[in-house]
């Protein structure tokens, strides 16, 4: 029991939500998470999230695939078990490009998928708390992390900011 709690406001309109995110941040509150039933354009910028590093991971996975393929085929064809195919040289780069391409794509795709699952803590058997079922269909939630020690004054401040920015409902929930 870590006593973690979450205070969240529900919004019923994406435009109100977008303005609210800007408004609440301008007032100096730190938003923990915003949950929406569909992607909202401009939300990432409004929340001040940095760009995902998934692309860079993808590049590294891809490059690993390229090197693995080229390195492995080169070793097999020139060192380990050289065979003469149709008079072509042992080191026949053009013939290896398709395999290299495939392995690059495979490594990048599988690597990025696993990285994505890891970053989002998604795996079979992991239970995720849904703050309110309506955020999966038509409501938007903006949540703030608090704990048992958070003073009532602080909570009231957050509630006030949420209300002032158009939240239609405000709830508190234990995370444990």
């Amino acid at each position, binding site marked *: 029991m870590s006593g973690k709690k979450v205070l969240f406001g529900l919004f019923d309109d994406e435009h109100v939500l977008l303005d609210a995110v800007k408004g609440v941040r301008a007032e100096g509150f730190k938003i923990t998470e915003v949950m929406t039933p569909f992607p909202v*354009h*401009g939300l990432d910028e409004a929340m001040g999230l940095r*760009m995902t590093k998934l*692309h860079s991971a993808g*590049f590294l996975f891809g490059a690993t695939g390229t090197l693995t393929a080229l390195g492995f085929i080169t070793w097999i064809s020139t060192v380990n078990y050289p065979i003469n195919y*149709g*008079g*072509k040289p042992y080191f026949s780069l*053009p*013939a290896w*490009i*398709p395999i290299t391409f495939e392995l690059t794509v495979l490594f990048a795709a599988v690597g990025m998928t696993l990285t994505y699952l890891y970053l989002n803590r998604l795996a079979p058997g992991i239970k995720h708390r849904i703050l309110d079922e309506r955020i999966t269909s038509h409501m938007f939630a903006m949540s703030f992390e608090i704990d048992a020690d958070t003073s009532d004054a602080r909570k009231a401040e957050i509630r006030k900011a949420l209300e002032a920015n158009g939240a239609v409902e405000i709830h508190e929930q234990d995370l444990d």
Partner: protein
Amino acid sequence: MSSTTKFDFTSTHKRNFIILFVIGMMAVLTGVFTGQADAQKTWANLLVNAVFFTGLSALAVFFLAAHQIAFAGWHALVKRVPEAMTSFLWIGAICILVVTGGTIGNYNNLYHWSDTFLIKEKVTMAELEAYEKEHAHGHEMEGDHESGEHHGEEHSMLSNGTVVLASAGSEGGESGMIDNPYYDEILDGKSAYLNDAFFMTRTIIYLVLWVFIGYQLRRFSIKEEETGEKMWFQKTRTWAAVFLVVWAVSSSMMAWDWVMSLDPHWYSTLFGWYNFISLWVASLSVVILLIIYLKRNGYMPQTNENHLHDLGKYIFGFSVFWTYLWFSQFMLIWYGNIPEETAWFLERKREYNFLFGANLAVNFLVPFLVLMRRDAKRNFTVLTVVASLLIVFHWVDFYLMIIPSTVHGAAPIGYFEIGMALAFAGVFLYSTFRALSKVSLVPQHNPFIQESIEHHI
């Protein structure tokens, strides 16, 4: 600057483009008069630039048609640029007609198959003598050298008279017909498709359709701007659909006809797409450069890095696709190792090894590595550099497809070749900028204009 602003085509622009043209022409004329460039080389370079610049313009029509059909809302703000590029199309079409017509009218010798003597199995003595007399000089450049199929080549090693007498002695039959020592079975087999009349008919059909539909799309767009009626948008859709059907067929056929048939013994089944994509990447690069130029001069304020990001993705993606086609063509021929097919690459590797490698390296590695990052596609300076390189090297791509097949032996790119390209660029830019100044740069009555303004990725 209001959204109805038209581009101001100043006298400075005009002067600069005319200077570009004049400098180019001076280089061309110098080449011609000093003998640096013989007739064959001049015609061949004319073909390179005619195909390349007509292609840039035709692909601008494709840009408009494809986005129109796809209801691509984001492109509404930038569509004036490809629209303006279509204004060069009729000039390019004339250049193509001059070059291809030149072959058909026997003013030049670019298309080897157009020589009907080569497809006659039997000829009379008199015909053979007349032919040999006519081709006594410059016979060298006519035959293909590698494919090993050439009666012409064996023959040219001997003195003309000897062979003629030998053939006459052994074959001279009743009607005085003898075996044609220059008879080319492959050309004869292809003569149903590759003959003067059909070739010229096809060329005229593609060009007329492209020019006409390009003109219609531009005209409707201007009407839409002037009247604000939605019916013009619907009409544009109809013609855009027609163009895509026409283009699906004619894009491949133009490549076979104008470029691949320069080497009538050689063939590659993906040559049409290869040409199409090469021109498509170059044309998109021109669109990007023009938009950045306009933006740097304060026009098109609502067009922003989101639109250029999309265009940047295009040149990134299609450069990879171009490479895929390049590689597919190369790898299968390399692997198969059939002399008839490898001849094409041998000729290029032998005399143009550096350009051959640079073509692949620049057109693949530069967009692939530089434009991979999101920031790069949104950075105008990076896009300018990459787009400029792509235009130059896709031109080189066409140079490498056309010149080795027509000007046999080494023909490095010198002042003459660059001059010819500059002259074309001068006319292309003059025509495009003039068209840009005709109508508001923002199509205000386009149904998608608001979507395009709010475009965000």
